[in-house]
């Protein structure tokens, strides 16, 4: 057991920081941009990253990556989010859409999609949740019915981030309505301009464009759009959702927000206030707890193991960190935290969404319980 970064990892972090500090304005935050502006920015920035092969460094070299390991992936994520996540939606393409294609795509799909993702030339959204399928994702009812020449997709997806700006949707649909629910699901790679697909915004308490509804009304999907075997989508998704759950170093972004809020508190002479001091300290500790807990997840991946319980523990710690940082920002800012552009207003969405998006807090707790109570803790 040791906590020392390898020299090449430290060098990678240093190079990344140097690059990002040179390329981005101070306190840059891509999530503060309007959706169209954000998409244009992230596309342009992804090209710069792609030139250095830092957009997809974890991918195998044959697909344009650097075959970097999980520790470098963590460093990349930490530094990107620490600098305002200039990749925005690209992280999803890179972290799990690409790996899904590498895992299950045919040669044509790989050639077309992987080259676009690795150039930063494309945005994806994930068509997972439905009105009746949230935590119980496998209860999804969107169906893709083979009519002899093509699939015909009917159904509705909701809460779909980036659908309004995405070029493709990574869609889960039921291809065998008679199979047990985890067994009849297939994956489709659907262009968002496909006839019959209507995307509209769902107004929300978050910033504009956060949520979308995708209605599939007789969308015709050729077989070439299907990723992996028919009815074989679930094992692929299960494997890749771990990437989704730990792929974003949320704790680092939260910690950056906290640092800026603490700096504001210091300038205002508020650090001696016991309530503010405790809120700041607890939030910092919560961010640090999440940071150290992700190490176990990354360590397992680096050793070729498939992390489960440790990943869920990390997710719970992350949710706590997001909420603790929100609490600290509102203690520092008071009612100023209600105003657009405040630390509190920035953190509000992260604090609220982290316990729901990419698997609810309750699902993480259930999954941990399965391991620590169910089969006995290892």
């Amino acid at each position: 057991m040791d906590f020392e970064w390898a020299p090449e990892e430290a060098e990678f972090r240093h190079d990344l920081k140097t690059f990002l500090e040179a390329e981005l304005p101070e306190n840059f935050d891509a999530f503060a941009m309007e959706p169209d502006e954000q998409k244009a920015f992230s596309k342009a920035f992804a090209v710069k990253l792609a030139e250095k092969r830092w957009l997809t460094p974890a991918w195998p070299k044959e697909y344009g990556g650097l075959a970097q390991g999980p520790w470098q992936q963590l460093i990349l994520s930490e530094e990107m989010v620490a600098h305002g996540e200039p990749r925005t939606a690209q992280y999803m393409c890179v972290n799990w859409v690409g790996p899904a294609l590498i895992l299950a795509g045919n040669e044509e799909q790989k050639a077309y999609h992987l080259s676009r993702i690795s150039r930063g030339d494309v945005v994806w959204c994930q068509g997972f949740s439905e009105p009746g399928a949230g935590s119980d994702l496998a209860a999804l009812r969107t169906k893709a019915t083979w009519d002899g020449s093509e699939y015909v997709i009917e159904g509705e997806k909701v809460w779909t981030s980036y659908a309004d700006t995405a070029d493709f949707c990574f869609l889960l649909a039921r291809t065998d309505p008679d199979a047990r629910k985890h067994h009849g699901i297939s994956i489709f790679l659907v262009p968002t301009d496909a006839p019959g697909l209507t995307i509209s915004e769902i107004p929300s308490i978050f910033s504009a464009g956060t949520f979308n509804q995708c209605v599939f009304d007789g969308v015709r999907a050729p077989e070439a759009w299907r990723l992996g075997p028919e009815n074989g989508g679930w094992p692929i998704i299960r494997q890749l959702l771990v990437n989704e759950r730990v792929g974003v170093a949320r704790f680092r972004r939260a910690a950056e927000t906290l640092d800026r809020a603490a700096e504001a508190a210091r300038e205002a002479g508020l650090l001696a206030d016991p309530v503010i001091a405790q809120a700041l300290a607890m939030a910092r500790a919560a961010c640090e707890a999440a940071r150290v807990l992700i190490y176990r997840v990354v360590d397992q991946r680096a050793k070729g193991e498939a992390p489960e319980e440790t990943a869920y523990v990390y997710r719970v710690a992350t949710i706590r960190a997001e909420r603790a940082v929100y609490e600290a920002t509102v203690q520092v800012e008071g009612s100023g935290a209600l105003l657009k552009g405040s630390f509190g207003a920035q953190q509000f969405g992260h604090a609220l969404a982290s316990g729901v998006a990419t698997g609810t807090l309750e699902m993480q707790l259930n999954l941990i319980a399965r391991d620590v109570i169910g089969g006995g803790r290892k």
Partner: protein
Amino acid sequence: MDMQLNELQQQISDACGKILERRAGPGRARALRAAGDFDRLLLTEMAEAGFLDLFGEPEAGPLVAALITQWGAQAAALAPIGIRGLVAPSVIHGDLPEVIAIAEQGAMGAVRYGAEADMLIVLDGDEARVARRGEFKAETIKSKFGYPIARITEAKGEALAPGAGAIARRWWRVAIAAEISGSARGAVDLTIRYMGDRVQFDRPIATYQALQHRIVECHVSTDAATWATREAAFRGAPVELAATAAIIASEAAHRVFFETHQLTGAMGFTTEYDLHLYTMRLQTLRLEMQGLRAHARDLIDARWSAAS
């Protein structure tokens, strides 16, 4: 980075585990508490095996000293393993007695192992002094909170090197966090077993989701304290990381205390059942060094008080 024990660490874990299995455990802790005693025999055996003198060993170092403190606490060992193995060697070089206590000037009303100690380290701001037996006076206080406690009424002693108080304070925090994380793990594991055995409404209470979530939240807090402690020890207990580990551990102590007792019901209130042997200590540990208030202040000062 490597989160698994290396070969040497594993060997130490195995050997130390055998001693703890033979010498420690809740039954031994209960007997010692009933007799108003503590586990000098265990300390002696660990010292003879070299497990209390690994802090300065390059191959083992403070991380292994912290691990041993965690393992000891998880085994309900009733002995100041962390102070002896992790704190004292950070400021005192050379031979150390087995039983060492630590206190802060101005806050010596409730000192763990104060009456049993062969040596007392007294922190006074950034400075520290060490008082050997005969150079300090301690009055035993009856306490239900898991450890022998004493009031220090007088402490003379010899000044340690300049700045020793600041150094010892950092390692004391790591030692507290290590003991909390080990004790909390003992309490959580025991409660999980209890939940599997305890049947209400014809089902083990471990099958109720509402209760599962509560113990799982304890598990998460305990994991966080465990790993934050290990990292802080590995990195040499810098002020910020040491304070952070202590804060994370304080949160775990608070949560685990109330939740494991809640989940165990009235059985947890009895001295016959083992839970109190872990949980009552958590109260003492989370208040040591003035607790969260002081940990938070040092973290704030270290991280944010200077202009960036």
